[in-house]
C-alpha cells in the first residue's frame, strides 16, 4: 500500500483516477481503517485529503453553510451557527460513534461509505443538502440522495472525490430533527432512523417537509408520501399516524443481527413520528425567537 | 458408621439409596470405602468430589476427620470463575 497526502482536490482526484489498483480517500479513516484491519479491503493507494486547503473549513455561503469534506464531526458540533440552522443534521452527525470517533469522522465519509445506516445521511437527505464532487474533469454538484446506491455502493466514479457538502439557507419557522434507534444509548449502528425537516407558516401549519429513513432499505430513502402526510397539517394525531404509516410502507429492511424486519419497520414509523414532533416544536421555537438565523 | 448423603444422579450406583452408610474416620476413608462398596461411584470420585461436613465444604482434604454424628454430603467438585 502507498500513502499520499494530496495538496489539492485536483491532485487527489488525479492520483485516484490514475491508480490501477484499489484506491481510497482518507478523511477521518474511522471506516477505512476498520475495513483494512479486518482484511476486507486490500487497498493499494490511500489519499489523505486533510491537507487540501479549505477542506477542513466551514464557510457561510448564500445563507447556508459549506462544510468541507474533512471537517470532523466534533468540529461541526462546535460550530454554533450550523447547529442553529440545521440542528437535525448536527445531532445526526454527532451520533456517529464515540467522542473519539467524533474527533475524526466526517459527514462526507459517512455518505461515501454507502451504508444505509449512516446517521448523517438521512438528516442530509431531509435537509436537501448538495454534495460538491471534484474530478480531473471538473466540479459538479449533486443532491445527497443521489449518492448512495446500495450497501457500500455509491454513484461516485473512479477519480471523483467529495470536497464539500452544502447545507442550504432555509425560510423562517424551519427546523429539522433526527432520531435513531439503537439497543444501547451509544456506540451502536442505527437499527432504524428517521430525519424530518419542515417549515411552518405563521399559524403553525406545515408548508414544506422532507422525511428520510435510514437502515430500513438498501439505501437511505426519501419518503415523499410521508412528507405529504404532514404538509398542510399542524401535526395533529391524524397527521402523525399517517406519517408513521407512510414511513412503514416505505420500509424494505432485512432481518439481521441488529434487528428484525418487523422491528425495523415499526420503529421507523415511531421514530419518524417523534422526530417530526421535535422538528415541529423547534420550528415553533425559531418562530418565537424571531425567525431563522 | 457415617451416613453419607449422595446427590441424585449417584443413586444409580447405590441401588437407589440416596443415603449410604460406610465406616470412615476421614474424608479419604470415606472415598475409599465408597469406591469399594459401590464401584460404580469410582469414576465420579476419581474426577473429583467435594464433601460438605456439617455445612462446611471440603474440596480435597483427605485427612479431614469425620465424626459419626456429622452431617456428610457428597457434592461434585466445586469450580468457579
Amino acid at each position, binding site marked *: 500500500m502507498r500513502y499520499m*497526502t494530496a495538496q489539492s482536490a485536483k491532485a487527489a482526484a488525479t492520483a485516484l483516477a490514475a491508480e490501477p489498483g484499489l484506491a481510497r480517500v482518507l478523511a477521518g479513516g474511522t471506516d477505512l481503517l476498520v475495513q483494512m484491519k479486518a482484511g476486507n479491503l486490500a487497498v493499494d493507494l490511500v489519499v489523505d485529503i486533510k491537507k487540501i486547503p479549505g477542506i477542513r473549513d466551514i464557510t457561510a455561503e448564500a445563507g447556508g453553510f459549506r462544510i468541507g469534506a474533512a471537517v470532523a464531526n466534533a468540529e461541526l458540533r462546535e460550530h454554533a451557527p450550523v447547529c442553529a440552522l440545521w440542528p437535525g443534521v448536527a445531532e445526526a452527525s454527532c451520533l456517529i460513534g464515540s467522542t473519539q470517533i467524533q474527533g475524526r469522522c466526517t459527514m462526507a465519509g459517512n455518505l461515501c461509505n454507502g451504508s444505509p445506516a449512516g446517521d448523517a445521511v438521512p438528516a442530509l437527505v431531509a435537509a436537501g443538502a448538495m454534495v460538491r464532487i471534484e474530478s480531473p474533469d471538473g466540479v459538479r454538484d449533486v443532491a445527497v440522495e443521489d449518492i448512495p446506491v446500495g450497501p457500500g455502493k455509491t454513484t461516485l466514479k473512479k477519480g471523483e472525490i467529495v470536497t464539500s457538502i452544502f447545507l442550504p439557507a432555509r425560510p423562517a419557522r424551519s427546523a429539522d430533527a433526527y432520531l435513531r434507534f439503537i439497543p444501547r444509548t451509544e456506540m451502536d449502528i442505527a437499527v432504524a432512523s428517521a430525519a424530518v425537516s419542515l417549515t411552518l407558516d405563521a399559524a403553525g401549519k406545515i408548508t414544506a417537509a422532507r422525511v428520510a429513513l435510514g437502515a430500513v432499505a438498501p439505501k437511505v430513502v426519501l419518503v415523499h408520501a410521508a412528507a405529504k402526510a404532514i404538509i398542510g397539517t399542524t401535526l395533529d394525531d391524524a397527521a402523525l399516524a399517517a406519517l408513521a404509516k407512510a414511513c412503514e410502507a416505505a420500509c424494505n429492511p432485512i432481518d439481521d443481527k441488529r434487528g428484525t424486519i418487523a422491528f425495523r419497520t415499526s420503529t421507523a414509523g415511531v421514530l419518524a413520528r417523534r422526530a417530526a414532533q421535535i422538528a415541529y416544536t423547534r420550528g415553533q421555537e425559531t418562530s418565537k425567537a424571531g425567525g431563522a438565523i | 458408621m457415617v451416613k453419607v448423603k449422595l446427590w441424585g444422579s449417584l443413586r444409580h450406583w447405590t441401588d437407589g439409596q440416596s443415603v449410604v452408610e460406610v465406616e470412615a474416620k476421614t474424608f479419604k476413608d470415606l472415598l475409599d470405602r465408597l469406591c469399594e462398596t459401590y464401584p460404580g461411584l469410582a469414576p465420579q470420585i476419581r474426577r473429583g468430589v467435594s464433601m460438605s461436613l456439617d455445612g462446611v465444604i471440603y474440596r480435597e482434604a483427605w485427612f479431614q476427620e469425620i465424626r459419626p454424628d456429622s452431617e456428610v454430603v457428597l457434592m461434585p467438585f466445586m469450580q468457579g470463575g
Partner: protein
Amino acid sequence: MKSLHISTTINGDPVEFICDPDEPLLDVLRNRLGLTGAKEGCGTGDCGACSVTLDGRLVCACLVLGAEAQGAEISTIEGMALGDHLHPLQRAFIDGAALQCGICTPGILIAAKALLEKNASPSDEEVRYWLAGNLCRCTGYDKIIAAVQVAAAEMRSA
C-alpha cells in the same frame, strides 16, 4: 511496502520514526516507540483503550495511521503526569478506587482530561456520554464517574 519516515511531537518531545504506510499509530506507539500505555482492546475504535489526543482532539490511536502523525502533536498517558506530580484525574482515580484491572484506565484518563478541558463542570450524564466510547468491564463505571467529578471540582478550585 515502502516504509515512511515520520517526524512528529509526542508529549512535547520531538520524535522520529519509520512505519509502514498502513500501520496504525497505535502500533507505532506500542511497538516502535515503547509507549505501551495506550492499549489495544479491539483495534476497531469500539473500546477506547487506545485513546490519545491528536492536535488536541481525542481520537482512537488504532484508527489513525502512523503516517498521519507527520507534523502533528500527540499526547499519550505517558505525558499526563508532570514528572512525579500526578494530574488531578490520576490522583482522583487512585483515591477513588476508580480502577480494578486498570487496562481501560489510560484511555479513560486521556478521554476525561479532554472532556474537562472543554467543559470544566460536566454533569454526571455528560461525563457518561463523553466516556461512552471507553469500555470498562470491571467497575460498572460508578467510581469512574465519581472520580472524574472529584478531579473536575479540584481543577475548578485550583
